[in-house]
């Protein structure tokens, strides 16, 4: 929720991956490196914006020696502590309180300090990811996330509930999948990308479709390929075989004299195209023989071998 303090705020040194003793140069170096990795125009992952924001907040505080001193002394609630409280005196008093001495005492700022930022959201102070730095309103970046679909989902379309980690915690989005989406196509969710600062518009979130490997179908564009196992006699004599397609079972006519590798096209039985020709389904013939022959089968094959003049290797 905007305005709500984040309970899981990490230590700023941890965010930048530097020790508490780091020099200003080391802090700057760590920040520059992380910012290059997670800038929302370089990294389209929906989680990158959150990370970039976290890095920027940490750097904003630690890059200024004065603010850093106050953060070191007072912790994440340092903005709550009045400006005129001397960090060193406070730390001495804290150490003293631990040893049973008086000084500032345990209760001095306790309430405010324990409550993270005491109800103040740091984003309100910084004005969003890029805001509050004199650049004016800045629109949010577009983001991309992968969406793996089964062949059946791509064929039928429908709705899919997708959970993403975002700056406000987890969010669940209802994604409408149009029938006939294919590999690499992008589904846009308007305004669900990076957040704009100071009232600027949000970016869009794109789901890039990837069709998961399927035990039966191979996908190429909108065309589907499926194995069609046949017995030698079916292939030689011709037959009609039931083939399963994403749209339901259908019959394919195998002409007499069909060899392995031949593709039988089932017109427009592949993935649908919302505004054009649907994909085809190709049944690829694969001639299978029994691993073990019965005596009768062996006799018949031997008879065929003796009778037939067919030689597939003849040049």
């Amino acid at each position: 929720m905007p305005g709500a303090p984040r309970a899981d705020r990490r230590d700023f040194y941890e965010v930048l991956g530097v020790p508490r003793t780091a020099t200003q140069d080391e802090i700057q170096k760590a920040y520059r490196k992380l910012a290059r990795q997670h800038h929302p125009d370089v990294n389209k992952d929906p989680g990158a914006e959150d990370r970039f924001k976290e890095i920027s907040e940490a750097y904003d505080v630690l890059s200024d020696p004065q603010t850093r001193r106050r953060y070191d002394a007072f912790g994440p609630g340092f903005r709550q502590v009045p400006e005129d409280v001397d960090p060193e005196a406070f730390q001495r008093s804290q150490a003293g309180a631990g040893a049973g001495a008086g000084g500032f005492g345990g209760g001095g700022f306790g309430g405010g300090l324990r409550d993270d930022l005491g109800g103040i959201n740091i984003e309100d102070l910084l004005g969003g990811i890029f805001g509050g730095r004199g650049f004016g309103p800045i629109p949010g970046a577009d983001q991309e996330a992968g969406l793996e679909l089964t062949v059946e989902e791509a064929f039928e379309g429908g709705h899919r509930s997708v959970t993403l980690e975002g700056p406000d915690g987890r969010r669940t989005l209802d994604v409408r999948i149009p029938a006939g989406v294919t590999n690499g196509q992008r589904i846009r969710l308007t305004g669900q990308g990076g957040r704009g600062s100071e009232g600027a518009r949000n970016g869009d979130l794109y789901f890039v479709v990837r069709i998961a490997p399927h035990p039966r179908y191979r996908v190429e564009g909108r065309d589907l390929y499926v194995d069609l196992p046949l017995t030698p006699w079916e292939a030689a004599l011709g037959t009609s075989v039931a083939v399963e397609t994403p749209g339901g079972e259908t019959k394919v006519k195998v002409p007499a004299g069909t060899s392995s590798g031949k593709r039988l096209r089932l017109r427009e039985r592949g993935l649908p195209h919302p505004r054009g020709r649907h994909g085809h389904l190709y049944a690829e013939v694969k001639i299978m023989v029994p691993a073990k022959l019965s005596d009768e089968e062996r006799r018949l094959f031997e008879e065929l071998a003796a009778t037939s003049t067919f030689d597939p290797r003849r040049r």
Partner: protein
Amino acid sequence: MGYALVLVRSASLNLEAFARATGTHPDLVRRLVTLGILEADRDAAGDLWFARSQVTVMGRVQRLRAGFGLNYAAVGLVGDLLDRIAVLEAALEEARRAGR
């Protein structure tokens, strides 16, 4: 009877509309066009017209400037490189899928 030929630019934005849509100053927009960072058409009267897609480009310019403190020449370079990387990544993904 003759009719005047009117160019319909409903999909484009003029300089003021573009500046308004992006929350920027028209002078800045003009400067970015001169630097080749934003693309615009110039009509017979010399006015600038922007495709809607340039609003997205402007957003990226603003973010790169705010995020890295880049000057506008560097923003142009980074933007071009990001576009080239996007094309290469798409081609790589395509090749990966085809080779599977």
